């Protein structure tokens, strides 16, 4: 290897370009140090340090949104900063900020380590951000595994809860399986594309552009196509698409509520960020296979998610299974985006509205959960609107937005996806989606019903027969956070300019 080569490689190592991720990584380590250094009574501040870091990084990314490294291959082709990547960074930072806040609400209730949670969340956030910018299958896989391993720990975080441990184990086994599938796919692609000789060290069959180039010239190469499908299968596991959705209800129920929120929002969004990159940049030449495959996947996911959510009484399982149907709607958008380019922006718009609404609902759930975090039943919401009107209102707005009821943001998200699907001529898929929206009204409305409509109780029996946790009063920060989420959901329903001017350029 000559020195010029090393020099050329070093020139593309623009460390500032991944500054946000590096700050997060350093801060994560810093948190652990702080736990050792700080006196015991001051350790309550550690979560705030984590949140401040996220906030600062978020501000930094926001200020440098149009960076000078945009659309350049960095680190010898490992990373490519794009507009979508920047949007993803903002998304993951926002979502992690909220997850950390929910952590401060939920974690003190259980006997669990207090600092590691924030450490892992920061590391996972950095990995998520790198994942969205990866331009190379090695980078892609390493970032993805960092995320996944972080989640293995987080899901089983309540070590004294059997549910949490069970969820952790299930996620570990199935997650490892999906990683193996994906790795096998990457290897097949490598085998088909790569020249094993290391001349110049460039054409290794891992770079996205090289793979895309190869597929363009050999669109019917069996090995590469099979590899592509296996990689997509691995991604489908992340987003919880049919038939890889079986892990969702148990894991969502067992995981601590903040982690459930993290899984439901960030992990799913990461899957879609990756999917959009793969579909548009890497596997674009396989359009003929992708469109029918993704349509089928979307339809099955929508139907499966909605039907299985119908009978759920546990709110965490409900969020999980209804989340599956949201993944289906998003897949519809991804499918449409193959022929209607602006639909990719619509997918991100939907993801943002989904984050706002889901986080509002998870915020309410975090305040309602009792000692047993996995035991959150619909019946516990009885009289919520009367006892805690604020939580009731936030819940109604969040659930309403998830159901896609106008004038809330979720409806606008669905509308954009449906218009895109119409323009992409996906008529039968659209019919499935519209029918499912009606079905989903049943269970979402049931939730609102549980919180708002009082069922008849025998008058002599004043105390409710089932023992249910008393909803905690949100602190003023909690009120501010949830009010912001709810208000943003309402305002985006009326006035979409803040997001659309940014996402749908």
């Amino acid at each position, binding site marked *: 290897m000559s020195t010029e080569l090393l020099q050329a490689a070093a020139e593309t190592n623009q460390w500032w370009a991944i500054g946000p991720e590096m700050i997060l990584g350093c801060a994560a380590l810093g948190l652990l140090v702080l736990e050792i250094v700080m006196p015991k009574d001051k350790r309550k501040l550690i979560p705030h340090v984590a949140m401040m870091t996220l906030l600062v990084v978020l501000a930094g990314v926001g200020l440098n949104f149009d960076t000078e490294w945009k659309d350049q291959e960095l680190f010898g082709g490992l990373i490519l900063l794009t507009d979508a990547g920047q949007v993803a960074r903002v998304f993951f930072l926002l979502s992690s900020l909220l997850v950390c806040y929910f952590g401060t609400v939920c974690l003190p209730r259980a006997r669990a380590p207090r600092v590691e949670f924030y450490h892992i969340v920061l590391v996972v956030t950095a990995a998520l951000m790198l994942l969205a910018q990866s331009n190379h299958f090695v980078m892609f896989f390493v970032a993805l595994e960092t995320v996944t391993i972080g989640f293995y720990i987080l899901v089983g975080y309540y070590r004294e809860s059997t549910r949490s441990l069970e969820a952790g184990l299930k996620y570990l086994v199935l997650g490892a399986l999906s990683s193996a599938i994906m790795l096998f796919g990457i290897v097949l692609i490598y085998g088909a594309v790569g020249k094993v000789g290391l001349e110049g060290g460039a054409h290794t069959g891992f770079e996205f552009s090289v793979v895309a180039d190869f597929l363009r010239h050999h669109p019917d190469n069996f090995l590469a196509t099979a590899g592509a499908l296996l990689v997509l299968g691995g991604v489908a596991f992340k987003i919880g698409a049919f038939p890889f959705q079986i892990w969702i209800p148990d894991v969502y129920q067992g995981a601590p509520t903040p982690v459930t929120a993290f899984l439901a929002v960030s992990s799913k969004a990461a899957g879609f960020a990756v999917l959009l990159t793969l579909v548009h940049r890497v596997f674009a030449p396989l359009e003929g296979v992708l469109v029918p495959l993704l349509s089928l996947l979307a339809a099955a996911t929508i139907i499966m998610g909605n039907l299985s959510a119908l009978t759920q009484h546990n709110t965490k399982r409900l969020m999980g299974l209804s989340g599956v149907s949201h993944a289906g709607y998003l897949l519809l958008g991804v499918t449409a985006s193959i022929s209607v380019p602006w639909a990719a922006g619509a997918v991100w718009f939907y993801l943002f509205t989904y984050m706002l609404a889901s986080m509002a609902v998870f915020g309410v759930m975090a305040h309602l959960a009792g000692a047993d975090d996995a035991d959150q039943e619909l019946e516990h919401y009885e009289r919520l609107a009367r006892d805690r009107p604020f939580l009731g209102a936030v819940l109604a707005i969040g659930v309403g937005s998830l159901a896609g009821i*106008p004038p809330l943001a979720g409806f*606008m998200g669905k509308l954009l996806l449906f218009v895109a699907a119409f323009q992409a001529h996906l008529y039968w898929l659209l019919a499935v989606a*519209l029918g499912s929206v009606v079905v989903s009204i049943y269970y979402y*409305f049931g939730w609102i*019903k549980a919180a708002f*409509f009082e069922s008849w109780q025998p008058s002599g029996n004043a105390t409710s027969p089932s023992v249910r946790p008393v909803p905690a009063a949100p602190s003023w920060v909690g009120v501010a956070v949830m009010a912001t989420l709810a208000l943003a959901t309402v305002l985006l329903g009326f006035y979409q300019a803040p997001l659309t001017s940014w996402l749908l350029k």
Partner: protein
Amino acid sequence: MLTNAHLLQLAIATPLVAALIIACGLPKRFSIRLAAIAFTVPALIALWLWSKFPAAGAQNYSFLSTTDTGLSAFGLSLKLGLNGIALPMFLLAAIVGLAAGLYALRSQAERLKLYLLLLLVMHGGLLGVFASVDVFFFYFFHELALIPTFIMVGIWGGRDRNYAAMKLTIYLTAGAMLSLTGLIAIYVKSGANSFDLITLRETLTADPLRVTTQKYIFGLLMFGFGILVSLWPLHTWAPLGYGAAPSSTAMLHAGVLKKFGLYGLVQIALPLLPAGAAEWAWKLALLAGFGNVLVVGFITMAQRDLKQMLGYSSVMHMGYCFLGIACLSTIGSGGVILLMVAHGLSVALLFLLATSVHHRTHTFDLAEMGGLAQKTPVLAALFLAGTMASIGLPGFANFWGELTIFVALWNFSPWITAVAVAGVVISAIYGLRAATRVFFGPPSEALQRVMAEHPPADLDWRERLPALILLAALFFFGFYPRALSEPVNQALTAPPTVVTAPASFHR
């Protein structure tokens, strides 16, 4: 400068802003006063705009204003304005909203603040529906008004409220989804890249869609809107929902919100998809004529519950409106608008009075009632007037609507006209029989006991005022129908708003 266009925006914004202020925790006493103002302001503005409505505006729309909400790249922006069809409906929404609001102010409902808040949101949505020139916002405001309905039925509803709320939600969401699909289909297929009704009309008049496409889209809209208007056999949510709904909600929904679908058919579907409408006209006429008018008419006759009976009768009267639309003629569509306004006023009046009857008799069962006229003469007089209006007696606005539709229907098919006229007889039978049962004859033993315990008082002013507002409007339009027919006629006959070439579809 405050122009009339601003006033139109103000009329829609007032109830919504008032609802927001109440939501922020205004004390109950002030909430009630604020709500009273917020219900009155739109009514005053509507009357003012009606008096200022010009003989002809640009593209037939007046008071136009456009606000960009961030999706203008998709041709989607909040465009408000009124044309000759929208104006009467806007006026109807404002008047019924005022009456329902005034009635709700003094109601004994628990959680009154939430009740008023939801009612205000609903009112704002209703006003928005008829003032929207943008097809998307037309749908959007409808949903804004619809959601509070579900919640109000669920919280303050009567018997079976949980079941009714769920059924209402699922039916109406299904209808809304179908119509949304139809509207998106128009948007995509027209190629205008705009949800603006004026642009869509111009594009589709110059370059109509293929007949098969029109047929599919009109079918989507017909059934989508049809569910929302309770087209037979998809009507079963209506009597159940109205039976369970609290009175102000029932007044606003049956009186105004339900007309959304018909308004959509007249304002959007007929002018944009004339050939599609021609394909479906006979099917619609048969469904409405035999289903809504005859079958539901007979079902109404068999009702024992006063509120259910009113619910069924409103389903039946919607049949006339569908028949008017099926005529595909200017005069038929004009009749639909007249009848919608008249029916909205009369059904709201009857729902209000039915609740007043219930307060005095503690039952909705017609078989148990009787003899109320002696105790409460004013209530009896108003109820009879409302019943007469709903039957379509001359002197009330309903008469002109039904007459116009029958005239148009004769050109369409004399046989269907015969069915429709038979419907008038049916509605006279059940209407008058209900009025007799409630107010005349001896009361049942159970009722005598109730009346001995709570001697019934006649209507007080909080009930009388909204009822008189509605009745006055019914009389006014009954004796001076030109107030409505002139703008309607102007909107329906002027290009490019021509509904269809009238001669070509007469059979």
